[in-house]
C-alpha cells in the first residue's frame, strides 16, 4: 500500500460548497497522480471549483472542454503526449451528467480505442453545477428540480456499460473513504490503457443534508449496500474491505435514505425497488466472488 504524500495539489479555499465531496476526492486523486498530470474537465462543478480567471485553485494544468467531449479530448491529448515521449498522466474528471448522459458517446469511443488514460466519474447523482436537475445517474425516488415527484426511471448502470468495453481496471470509490480512493487511483495509473473509477460523491447542497454530514452519508451508502466498493482487474472482481460487511449484514436502506431531503417523498414501492436492486446486486457479486 502506497504512502499518501503530504503535498497538496488543490489549494485551500476553493469556491466549492461547504461539505463538497468532490474537492475532498480531488486532493487524494492528485496526491496519487503527482505533478506530471493534466486534468481534463467538461462542464461540471469542478469547472467552478477551479476558480475564475485569472486564478486557478490547482497546482496541475486543468484543461476545460465542452460538456460532451471530455473523453475524446483526453483521447487526443493522451495520444499526443505519448507521441512526444512524455509520460504525463491524463485524467478526465467528470460529473455523472457528463459521463452517463451527454458524455457517453465520447466515453465509449475512448474505451473502445483503449486510450491510455484514467476516466474518473464523480457521481452526485444529478446535474449539480446547474442547480440539481436529474441525470441518468439519479436513483429511483430521488427528488431533483426536474423530477419534483421523485425519479421514476432507475439509475443507469455505468459500471456495466464501461465493463462491456473490457477495461484493464475498473473500480468504485466513495468520498467517505479517501485512502481507498487514493490506492485505487495509484493502481489505475500504473496500468496502461483505459481505466475507470466511479466515485459516489454525496452532495449536501443537492441531496439536502447538513454540510458536516458528508462522510456519514457516504459511509451509510456503503454500509447499506446502496453503493458497493470493489475493483475489477481485467474483469476479475475483488470486493473492497469497507464493503465486506454490507455483503452479508447490510444496514437497513432507510438508514441511508432518511439522512437526505431528496428522498423525503420516496414511496414504499420505490424503497422496495431499491432494496430489491441492492439484494440482486449483492447476490450477483457474491456468486461471482466464489
Amino acid at each position, binding site marked *: 500500500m502506497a504512502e499518501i504524500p503530504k503535498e497538496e495539489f488543490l489549494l485551500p479555499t476553493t469556491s466549492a460548497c461547504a461539505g463538497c465531496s468532490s474537492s475532498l476526492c480531488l486532493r487524494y486523486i492528485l496526491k496519487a497522480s503527482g505533478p506530471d498530470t493534466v486534468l481534463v474537465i467538461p462542464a461540471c462543478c469542478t469547472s467552478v471549483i477551479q476558480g475564475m*480567471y485569472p486564478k486557478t485553485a490547482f497546482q496541475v494544468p486543468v484543461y476545460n472542454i465542452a*460538456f460532451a467531449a471530455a473523453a475524446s479530448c483526453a483521447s487526443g491529448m493522451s495520444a499526443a503526449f505519448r507521441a512526444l515521449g512524455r509520460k504525463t498522466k491524463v485524467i478526465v474528471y467528470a460529473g455523472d451528467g457528463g459521463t452517463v448522459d*451527454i458524455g457517453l458517446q465520447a466515453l465509449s469511443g475512448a474505451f473502445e480505442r483503449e486510450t491510455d488514460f484514467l476516466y474518473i466519474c464523480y457521481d452526485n447523482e444529478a446535474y449539480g453545477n446547474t*442547480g440539481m*436537475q*436529474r441525470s441518468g445517474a439519479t436513483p429511483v425516488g430521488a427528488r431533483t428540480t*426536474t*423530477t*419534483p*415527484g421523485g425519479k421514476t426511471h432507475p439509475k443507469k448502470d455505468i459500471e456495466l456499460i464501461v465493463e462491456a468495453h473490457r477495461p484493464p481496471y475498473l473500480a468504485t470509490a466513495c468520498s467517505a473513504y479517501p485512502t481507498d480512493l487514493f490506492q485505487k487511483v495509484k493502481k489505475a495509473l500504473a496500468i496502461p490503457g483505459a481505466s475507470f473509477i466511479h466515485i459516489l460523491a454525496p452532495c449536501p447542497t443537492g441531496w439536502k443534508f447538513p454540510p458536516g454530514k458528508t462522510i456519514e452519508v457516504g459511509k451509510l451508502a456503503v454500509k447499506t449496500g446502496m453503493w458497493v466498493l470493489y475493483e475489477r482487474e481485467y474483469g476479475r472482481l475483488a470486493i473492497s474491505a469497507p464493503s465486506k460487511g454490507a455483503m452479508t449484514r447490510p444496514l437497513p436502506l432507510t438508514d441511508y435514505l432518511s439522512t437526505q431531503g431528496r428522498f423525503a417523498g420516496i414511496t414504499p414501492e420505490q424503497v422496495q425497488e431499491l432494496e430489491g436492486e441492492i439484494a440482486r446486486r449483492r447476490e450477483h457479486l457474491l456468486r461471482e466472488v466464489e
Partner: protein
Amino acid sequence: MHTIATGNRGVAEAVREAKPGVIAAYPITPQTEIVELIAQFVAGGTMAGTYIPVESEHSALAACIGASAAGVRTFTATSSQGLLYMHEMLHWAAGARLPVVMANVNRAVAPPWNVWADHTDSLSQRDTGWLQVYVATAQEAYDTTLMAFRIAEHEEVLLPVMVNLDGFVLSHTMQPLETTPAGDFIPPLHLPHAIDTSQPAGYGPLTGPEYYYTFRWEMERSMRDARQVIREVEEAFYQKFGRRYGPSEEYRMEDAEVAIVAMGTLGREAQVAVDRLRGEGIPAGALRLRWFRPFPRLDLAGREVVVIDRDYSFGFGGVLARSLQATTPCEPYSVIAGLGGQEVTYADIAGFVRQRRPGDEYWFGVDAGV
C-alpha cells in the same frame, strides 16, 4: 395572473398556455428555470404534454424533430453551448419544415466559460433557416412565445422559431408579467406532411442535384412570406390582448437625427440613454430590432446610426451592424459591447452616441479601434 416574474417564467407560462404535446430539453445555465418550471407543471398536472429529460441538447432537438414530424406541437429551450451542440439539428428542423418553437437564453460561448448575456450563440445560427426574434421584457417573452407557435405553424411558414432572451439580465430579472389565457389564439396544429402510415412517404431521403435546390428555395419563399404572417399574427394578438409589438420597437425616432440600434435588453436600456441625450440637446432615438430573421428592410435615411452589437463575427464585424449595411444605406458607428455580460449602462450608451464616428468600429473596453 398578474405578478412579478422572471423572463424565464414568462416563457414557461406561455409554453403551458400553448399546450405542446412533447417538450424535450436539457438543462444549461441560465435556461434551467424554464425546464424546471415545465417539469413542475407537468408533474403537478397543470400542464398536459410529455416532458422528456433528454441526455444532451443534440438529442433534445432531435427528439423535438421526431415529435413534430408525427404532427405534435413541440418546444425546447437552451443557451450558448447547448445551442451550438444542436447546430446540426437546427439545420435539420428548418429543412424538415417543422414548426418547433425554441427559447434560447442568450449566453456567451466558450472557451473561456462564461454564463452571462451575449448574442453570439443565436446570431451564429442565423443561416440555419430558423426565424429569430429578440425580446426585452418578461411580458414580451410571454407574448412572443405565444405568437411564435402560431407563426411557426402557419401554413405559409412551417419553419421553426427561436425566441431569444438575454441571460440573467432578462431570464433572471423579475418584472411585471400579466399572463392571459391564450384561449383560441393558437389554432390546433395541422402539419400537412405529418407522418401518416396510411400514406407512406420518405422523409428527407437522398436527393440529387436536380431537385435539392428546390427545397432550399421553398424555405426561402416561406421565410419571405413569414414577414406578412408575423404582421398578421401580431395584429391579431393586439386585437385579442391589447399589446402590440412590431418588427422593431421605436422610441422617439420620429424626429431623431441619430438612431441607436440594438437588440434585446440593451435596446431598452438605450431608451433611457435617449432621454438623457435629449436632455443635452442631442436628438437621439432608439430602434430595438426584434425580428432578426427574416431580416427587415429598415429605412435609416437622413440619420446617423449607432449600432450596438452584443456579438461578433471574427474577421468581418458586428453581425447587426454589417447586416444593416448590407440591406440599407447607412454608415453605422459600430459598437461592440456587452460581450460575455460586460456591463453596459444607459450612461455608457449615451457615451457611444457622443463619441460617434460614422463608419468606425469601437470595442467597448478596448483602446484600439478599427
